[in-house]
């Protein structure tokens, strides 16, 4: 699979793709299976360090924060490569960059500098599994003169076990709307649960977080009160192309493994790949990869040019959905071996399903897409 590369005339993007492939091969592929046993294996801190060294977390940061000011396209191109080797780390990068972008978008300049202009990146936990149009309001924020007092629980906060800072949605009391707050994890009153065991993306840890009267300074409110409810849905839709790439990368990994297995294994006196039914499954995967690349790239480029919101939104929903079915077939191509840990194929099926759960139920996302289209036309 030549990946995005074939379609590229853009030398800069090509170099991002090559960077992603090199990184995936060297830092991620060799350890992906072992690290999937988290929390009974380590968090992938070495990849995190290596990624920071090559400036991955500065990719989309604006120049005033020491970043290289790239858009979603560069991110998408790299994410697909990372996810093809280990979607867990792909998700760590995606969530971190997503959270950073939220801070850049809504925080005051000095707050952004405080949290983002750091030597080593400070991982930021984010409620990536909550629907943007239905953020949990279980955490209540009580306004005091010097800041807010946060109390309540939030479930499945991504990166919470390994993060230093957290973005927490909370209801400023009586408002009925969610607002985002930056909370430092070591603040007193923050209690992070043991890592939550989930279906996939094991090395992109998740935990439940309890806040008992946690003091948060006024300026740590992102945007205005209720901002999360107002502009977050559109903000997240812009990352649709990147989310689609994360799914696509998983599929690319699944396809590679299925193809090489089918060429090696014999059944009924024939190579498996010579059985039409296996061929058809591989063909369907190839179909989705080839069209999926176009979707990811076009949607991301449109977003970088200030257009294509619904396109990116739709791309993220569509690829996440179809990739869950296609990676299920990716397991089938290997028969019993696909179901075992050793080939990494079952991990891809789980990871794809976990990615689909990001930002809430997939049918709800479809309805929101239509809602957006209707609103824009009306």
């Amino acid at each position, binding site marked *: 699979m030549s990946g995005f590369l074939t379609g590229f005339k853009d030398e800069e993007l090509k170099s991002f793709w090559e960077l992603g492939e090199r990184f995936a091969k060297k830092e991620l592929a060799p350890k992906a299976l072992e690290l999937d046993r988290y929390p009974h294996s380590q968090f992938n801190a070495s990849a995190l360090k290596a990624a920071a060294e090559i400036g991955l977390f500065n990719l989309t940061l604006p120049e005033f924060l020491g970043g290289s000011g790239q858009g979603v396209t560069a991110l998408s191109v790299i994410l697909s490569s990372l996810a093809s080797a280990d979607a867990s780390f792909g998700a760590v990068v995606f969530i971190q960059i997503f959270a950073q972008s939220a801070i850049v978008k809504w925080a005051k300049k000095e707050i952004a500098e405080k949290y983002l202009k750091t030597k080593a990146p400070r991982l930021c936990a984010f409620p990536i599994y909550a629907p943007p149009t239905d953020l949990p309001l279980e955490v209540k924020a009580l306004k005091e003169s010097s800041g807010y007092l946060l109390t309540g629980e939030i479930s499945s906060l991504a990166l919470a076990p390994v993060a230093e800072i957290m973005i927490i949605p909370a209801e400023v009391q009586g408002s009925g709307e969610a607002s985002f707050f930056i909370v430092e994890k070591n603040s007193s009153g923050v209690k992070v649960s043991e890592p939550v065991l*989930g*279906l996939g993306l094991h090395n992109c840890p998740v935990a439940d977080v309890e806040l008992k009267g946690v003091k948060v300074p006024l300026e740590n409110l992102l945007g205005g009160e209720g901002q999360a409810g107002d502009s977050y849905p559109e903000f997240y839709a812009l990352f649709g192309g990147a989310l689609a790439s994360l799914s696509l990368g998983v599929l690319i990994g699944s396809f590679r493994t299925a193809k090489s297995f089918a060429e090696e294994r014999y059944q009924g006196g024939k190579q498996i790949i010579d059985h039409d039914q296996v061929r058809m499954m591989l063909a369907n995967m190839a179909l989705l990869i080839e069209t999926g690349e176009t979707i990811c790239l076009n949607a991301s480029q449109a977003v970088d040019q200030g257009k294509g919101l619904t396109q990116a939104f739709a791309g993220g929903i569509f690829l996440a959905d179809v990739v869950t079915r296609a990676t299920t077939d990716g397991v*089938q191509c290997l028969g019993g071996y696909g179901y*075992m840990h050793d080939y990494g194929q079952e991990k891809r099926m789980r990871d794809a399903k976990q990615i689909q*759960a990001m930002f809430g139920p997939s049918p709800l996302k479809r309805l929101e897409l239509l809602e957006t289209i209707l609103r824009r036309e009306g």
Partner: protein
Amino acid sequence: MAQVDFDNENLFAFDEGFFSLMYLRKFNKGLVDDTRKAIEDNRDFCINHLKPLALEVDRKYHENPNYLPRELVELAARHRRLSSYIPKYMGGQGEPMFMIGPVAEELAATDCAFVGLLGGHGLGLAALMLTFNIKVLDEVLAKIVEGEKTLKPVMLSCAITEPTAGSDVEEEELYPKARLICQAKRVKGGAVLNGRKVFISTGHVAKYHVVLMPFDNKRPLDTFACFLVPSDSKGFSLGRMEHKMGQRAGLASELVFEDCFVPEEHIVLAVDDKFGQRYPGQYPKLLKGVLGITRAYVGAWSTGTARGVTERAIKFAKTHKLKGKTMINHQWVQAHLTNMVMNVFMARAIYMESYFANLTNLPMGFDRLPRFMNTEIMGWLMSTRPYKMILHSDILRRFFIWNFFNTEPAQSQRVQYMASMAKVVCSDIAMENSHLALELVAEAGVRHDYGMEKCFRDSKLLQIFEGTNQLNRLNLFNNYLGRHIPGVEVY
């Protein structure tokens, strides 16, 4: 913030769905009443005993991939689930084979993996029974019953799959072309086995292994044999335990045979024995008999899995809010859940039809054991010497085998294609409903503590084992359309 995974409301109760059976009661009251009772008993068992263990056992595998589900094996023994289909005169429960399907559905709705554990044992039992070697059966069945009483469970495994031959060994046409590595050799007083078997359910917890391998792996059909190997046999060892995505309690073990000696009396069946070809063509017959039963069983098991994930999704939708409104009150959520419920009913209809195909086409009916088999006097009678001699005689055995497998080709084909259909349709539906449930529930769906992601992982295996769904499609075509279209190429 752990949650209970589903509630105890009987959404898929007998009265709400088994309409054809209820009508059938007019003609066979006993069969239907027994089936209904078995479903209800197993439901109680699930709610009170299985449900509290299932998620916890599954979780242990994440900490230790080599964990052995001792508590589930003991649970099965304590509640006599290992002797369900053994006649009462032998100390078993004497349950009719027919209800094995609805019971599997009921159990799988709570824990798909537990059915895997019982299913591995049941497969060994079925393979052993279909050899009609009453002498070996007497010995093994008595040990299973004894094990339940003493709470030292005796489980069987059935070893078919080899490292380089999975679906191949499940089809008559493919078997001779398979790359087989296992082979037995005749020696004085018995045989020695060599090779490796993989993905064997219950392998690491079984006391006896029912092993299928030929004496000449270049001519497997003509030299096929079935062996009984106790787990403490010399030359036998357990290899690695596979780290499966789901159905972890069902285990997938590697069995290693290195000059493993099997005495003459434990060569349960040899197509080509010292008297020549006494049971010619027995392998395909045994296989078809076993698969007719087991594939329909996988259909029922899959239906239960599809149902379990649906029940959990319904419970979630009833108890959680989305955009300020209880989920189940959204119209789109109702439609989504309805699709899942319809899928369960479609799956159930197909596997039931497959069971009826067995009843209609297999000569020694699978409905209920003759009543005398479940009487005490029978137990006494059978234990007397003259009866033992008759029972263990070769003539009787050949009579049984002749009778059981003497089906018209068309009848055998009907059993085959219906079993394949049940297997494919129901397992695809289990996978699809798992996808749908997780899509609906998203965040909670992918958390272990809500139980739905376990269903998702468990479901996938149903599409793979007992012949992949791809192979079963070919088998279905072959046995159904193939015979109506002269000259059509079959694979």
